[in-house]
């Protein structure tokens, strides 16, 4: 690919999705974009690039973004965030929201659904403790392709063995040939929507908890800052933000601070109502 074409895709991706394309990823362009060019009837990548310099069709731009996203995910990814959700976030919310009994959770880059479904199974496991409560999980992504997969809720044997305890596979999945399909009782707990993190967030409503994991790493500092600062406006003072293992607010924004003695759990600096986490001593 020509350097000038690389610059073209870099600028397009940044503007439309926030994704930062670094030169070391340029090798990905050819392999990922050739099928897109073919689908849209271009004989070569060069002719697609030329078309993009004019006024490109939104469909083409959408397919290019989709092709360049990384959708890697797994059930209960990294485990720790989910344990902390169960041990820190849930007890707090069960106390603090006991009159309304309503909690809204947002998975802000849900990919093929493993993250929101992990939360749904985790909530289901709480059983009677949550009777009478209304937990809403909204899961969004910029890629309509992964959203379709997520809605379907069917996974390969390989996917259900990464992170998912066997007891949960037995309880919440049905075998369908060589695939595993989530039961409706879990699927129905999650609502999927297309959403671009660069878009205004207010229409999504308020959220007590936001999982925004392993997506900000692909954005530059300014974008990260903007997105996290937009997120604070959706959250009450005692809201929780979960970031991925390689993500932080340090040096990016003061809108959140790391909760002491946790990994990847962020709260608003002014919040005084969430009980601090004590380090467990053996």
């Amino acid at each position, binding site marked *: 690919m020509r350097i000038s074409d690389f610059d073209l895709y870099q600028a397009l991706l940044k503007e439309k999705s926030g994704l930062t394309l670094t030169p070391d990823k340029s090798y990905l362009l050819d392999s990922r974009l050739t099928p897109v060019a073919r689908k849209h009837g271009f004989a070569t990548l060069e002719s697609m690039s030329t078309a993009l310099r004019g006024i490109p069709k939104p469909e083409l731009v959408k397919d290019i973004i989709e092709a360049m996203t990384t959708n890697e995910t797994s059930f209960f990814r990294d485990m720790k965030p989910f344990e902390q959700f169960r041990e820190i976030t849930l007890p707090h919310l069960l106390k603090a929201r006991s009159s309304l009994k309503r909690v809204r959770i947002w998975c802000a880059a849900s990919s093929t659904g493993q993250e929101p479904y992990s939360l749904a199974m985790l909530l289901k496991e709480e059983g009677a403790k949550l009777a009478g409560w209304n937990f809403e999980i909204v899961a969004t992504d910029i890629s309509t392709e992964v959203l379709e997969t997520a809605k379907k809720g069917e996974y390969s044997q390989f996917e259900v063995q990464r992170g998912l305890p066997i007891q949960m596979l*037995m309880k919440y999945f049905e075998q369908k040939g060589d695939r595993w399909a989530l039961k409706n009782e879990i699927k129905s707990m999650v609502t999927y929507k297309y959403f671009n993190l660069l878009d205004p967030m207010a229409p999504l409503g308020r959220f007590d908890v936001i999982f925004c994991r392993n997506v900000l790493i692909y954005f530059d500092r300014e974008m990260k800052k903007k997105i996290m600062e937009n997120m604070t406006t959706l959250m009450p003072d005692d809201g929780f933000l979960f970031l991925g293992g390689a993500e932080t607010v340090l040096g990016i924004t003061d809108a959140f601070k790391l909760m002491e003695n946790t990994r990847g759990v962020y709260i608003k600096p002014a919040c005084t109502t969430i009980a601090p986490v004590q380090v467990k001593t053996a």
Partner: protein
Amino acid sequence: MPSCLVVDDSRVVRKVARRIVEDLGFACEEAEDGQKAYEYCAKTMPDAILLDWNMPVMSGIEFLEKLRQMPNGNGPKVIFCTTENDLAHIQRAMNAGANEYIMKPFDSEIIESKFSQIGLL
């Protein structure tokens, strides 16, 4: 160093599994059927057992049932690792006292994920 016994009648599978569990920090021993595994456990109980289902002489499930009857036989964490990939088999293994279940083919990521879920890592 924690120990792991790999029980499988395929030498190739044992070799692959050995490499993975050693990378995870386990000292690895091998057995080629349930009977050999049983004899090994009568001498030394490992911390973890990676267990195939279909093997000559004594099957994995038979071995597991016997293991759990032995003194200290509840000690080892047992992870089935088999091509049997239907719910009925999984259910039976769990009822017999397995701690986790891997459906072949497996890779290092799956083994690591299962080991850490049951507190071996």
